[in-house]
């Protein structure tokens, strides 16, 4: 395991080098070995070749010597020169042959000396023979006869022959030895090569395995783990424990996964927190603040988190919420600005403030330190659109704590999100409160005025009725003045009734759902004009109505009320001395059509053009009869349909009222609408 561990701890570069060396060194060694063996084999084979050549030469020399003897004998016997031809040929060829033999066996001094001996003998023999041949040529046969008789020549020849044969035998024995050696070497080379290759294969396999185990397998595992993390996002310990680059990579990846997981977790938590603290229910703004404090303390894992809201009106901090049990103790209480300088600084600068050790702060009184027992403090501002409106204070009460940059960052991120939630909650709550209050008061007022109007109607009616009863019963018995007064009482009572009726009508617009139907304005205008026929005739008014008017989608009675009021208004405010001229028609205004009622009356001053739509605004025309509520009703009806009404006027020259109501084609099937209304 020791070697294994050592190997495991090597770097990938060293591992690869080692594995390559492990596989390459035997290959190189084997090759060197092979080369050496082959060289040796070649040398041995060279030797074998020269040996066998030497053997052949030895044989050739022997045959030449035999030729010398034969030639000599023939010449001596016949004195015929032609027998000497082979003698001289042999004589000539022996020297080179011996010379070559010497070359061949030159490496062995023993062989050389033996060849030299044979050469000397051969030369001596040839010298002798030549001398005898010369003697024969001179006719001296005596020496030759003596030579032959002595058998000296034959003995020398035999001696040489025997020496040569012995030498040949030695050579052959040597050759045999060399051949055996060559064979052994060849076999050795073959087996060696086979074994070497097998060994190399085994080494390669081992090297491959080692490489796989130390490099490729871990890499594959890293790939798998990464893929798995990408799919399931489950952080697992990567089982790679080497101390090389891959091990480091695995650790880095683990860390990275952990960090990704943590960040995603934080993001999810943030999201959840965002949803949680942003939702107004339960508890509205207070609930938001409370959840904010709880969640914030959880985010940084601190034992106390305060939501401090700056109150501009009293110039103090108000504790909006606190985490845990602190909430009930602290909520709503106030902290003095001078006793919470860290929070104040965060508020004023809009930058997070960290105090690792509150004990060494110079201030005499620090609320969070002295009242709440905070040891360390982190304060982040709750930043609004323009400036911070509060802070989140994270306090560690159990012991000192150094808030890291990351924690500060996290806290600020959280605070930014929380700030939006708080602002939203505040806005919503105040808007709701205001809206609810307004609506309640409005409803109350409406109810009150409707009831009052209704209650007034009875007495008004009775007043008129009683006045008319008096008129009936006491006709002639009262004086003319009393009759006139009674008439006024009756008229006023009836006028009051009419006015109350109008007020009730105004109040009712929009409160009761009326049937919306396609209405032809021309028909309604005819009805309106019929209603004020007499009035028109009396004034000598001329009324022009455009023939083609677009159909409108509204309640027929509503349109009647609008047009009736406008027409009566136009007739009412006619200029002195000229008969009223009315025009009713339609003009395109932008992408909608506006109906208009135009007169040539007294006109309306620019300053009054808004006021005329207010109830009971009579603009000082007290002599003109009317309730002063007609245009208010018109406006309310038009606004009920989300239309617009406006007036264009030139004082003294006339007035034009324009209004828009939904065109018939603009609305969805009328049948459905009316059915719904009926239901």
């Amino acid at each position, binding site marked *: 395991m020791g070697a294994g561990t050592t190997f495991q701890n090597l770097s990938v570069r060293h591992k690869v080098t080692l594995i390559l060396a492990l596989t390459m060194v035997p290959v190189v060694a084997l090759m060197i070995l092979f080369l050496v063996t082959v060289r040796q084999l070649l040398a041995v084979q060279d030797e074998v070749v020269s040996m066998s050549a030497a053997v052949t030469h030895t044989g050739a020399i022997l045959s030449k010597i035999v030729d010398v003897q034969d030639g000599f004998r023939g010449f001596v016997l016949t004195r015929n020169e032609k027998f000497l031809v082979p003698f001289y040929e042999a004589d000539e060829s022996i020297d080179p042959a011996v010379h070559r033999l010497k070359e061949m066996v030159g490496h062995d001094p023993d062989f050389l000396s033996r060849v030299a001996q044979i050469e000397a003998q051969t030369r001596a023999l040839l010298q002798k023979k030549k001398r005898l041949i010369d003697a024969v040529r001179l006719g001296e046969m005596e020496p030759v006869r003596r030579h032959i008789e002595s058998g000296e020549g034959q003995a020398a020849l035999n001696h040489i022959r025997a020496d040569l044969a012995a030498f040949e035998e030695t050579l052959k024995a040597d050759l045999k030895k060399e051949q055996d050696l060559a064979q052994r070497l060849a076999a050795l080379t073959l087996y060696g090569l086979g074994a070497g290759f097998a060994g190399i294969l085994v080494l390669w396999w081992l090297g491959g395995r080692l490489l796989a185990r130390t490099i490729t397998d871990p890499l594959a595992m890293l790939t798998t783990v990464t893929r798995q993390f990408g799919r399931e996002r489950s952080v697992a310990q990567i089982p790679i424990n080497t101390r090389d680059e891959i091990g480091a990579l695995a650790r880095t990846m683990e860390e990275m996964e952990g960090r990704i997981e943590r960040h995603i977790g934080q993001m999810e938590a943030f999201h959840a927190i965002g949803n949680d603290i942003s939702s107004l229910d339960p508890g509205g703004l207070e609930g938001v603040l409370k959840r904010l404090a709880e969640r914030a303390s959880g985010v940084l894992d601190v034992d106390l988190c305060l939501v401090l809201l700056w109150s501009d009106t009293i110039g103090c901090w108000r504790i909006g919420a606190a985490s845990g049990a602190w909430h009930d103790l602290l909520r709503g209480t106030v902290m003095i600005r001078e006793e919470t300088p860290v929070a104040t600084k965060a508020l004023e600068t809009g930058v997070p403030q960290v105090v690792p050790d509150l004990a060494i702060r110079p201030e005499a009184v620090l609320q969070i330190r002295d009242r709440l027992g905070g040891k360390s403090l982190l304060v982040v501002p709750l930043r609004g659109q323009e400036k911070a409106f509060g802070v989140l204070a994270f306090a560690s009460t159990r012991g000192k704590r150094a808030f890291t940059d990351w924690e500060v960052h996290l806290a600020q991120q959280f605070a930014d999100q929380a700030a939006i939630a708080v602002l939203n909650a505040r806005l919503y709550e105040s808007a709701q409160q205001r809206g609810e209050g307004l609506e309640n008061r409005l409803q109350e007022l409406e109810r009150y005025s409707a009831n009052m109007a*209704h209650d007034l*109607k*009875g007495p*008004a*009616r*009775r007043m*008129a*009725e*009683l*006045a*008319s*009863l008096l*008129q*009936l019963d006491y006709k002639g018995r009262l004086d003319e003045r009393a009759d006139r007064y009674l008439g006024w009482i*009756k008229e006023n*009572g*009836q006028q009051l*009734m009419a006015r109350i*009726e109008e007020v*009730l*009508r105004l109040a*009712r617009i929009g409160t*009761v759902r009326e049937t919306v139907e396609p209405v032809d304005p021309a028909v309604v205008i005819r009805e309106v004009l019929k209603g004020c026929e007499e009035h028109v005739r009396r004034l000598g008014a001329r009324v022009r109505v455009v023939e083609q008017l677009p159909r409108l989608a509204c309640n027929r*009675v509503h349109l009647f009320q609008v047009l009736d009021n406008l027409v009566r208004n136009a007739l009412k405010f006619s200029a002195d001395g000229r008969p009223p001229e009315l025009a009713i028609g339609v003009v395109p205004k932008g992408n909608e059509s506006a109906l208009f009622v135009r007169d040539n009356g007294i006109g309306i001053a620019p300053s009054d053009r808004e006021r005329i739509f207010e109830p009971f605004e009579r603009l000082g025309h007290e002599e003109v009869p009317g309730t002063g509520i007609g245009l208010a009703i018109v406006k309310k009806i038009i606004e009920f349909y989300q239309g617009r009404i406006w007036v264009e006027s030139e004082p003294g020259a006339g007035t034009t009222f324009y209004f828009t109501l939904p065109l018939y084609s603009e609305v969805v099937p009328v049948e459905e609408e009316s059915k719904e209304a009926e239901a």
Partner: protein
Amino acid sequence: MIALAFQRASVERPVVTVSDGQEALEYLTGEGPSKKRRTGELPKVVVLDLDMPRMDGFDFMQKMKAQPELAGIPVVVLTTSQFDQDLSRSYTAGASSCITKPGDFEQLVEIARAIETYWCRLNRVPERG
């Protein structure tokens, strides 16, 4: 006021006036302590003001129409309201006719006369028995 109008209209048949819905119901059912009607004689028509103390017109009509022997009596509603909704509510509750109070005594007398003429002389209801 309407009683006075009936009087002025020279209506010869008896006109019984009660002050509120409760009393009217008691009169019709014959249970009331105050005005006892003779058995067998039910009014030809009930003229009803919707605004009454104790029991308002709608309650009265509902209770009246719930009793089979009273359900057939026509009810004429006198109202100050000119709104369709109040009118339709009256008819739904069982009114046979609705008339807006005029605010003029002479007209009121005419109305009383018309009611007598139409509902007591011309109008026919099934004979009970």
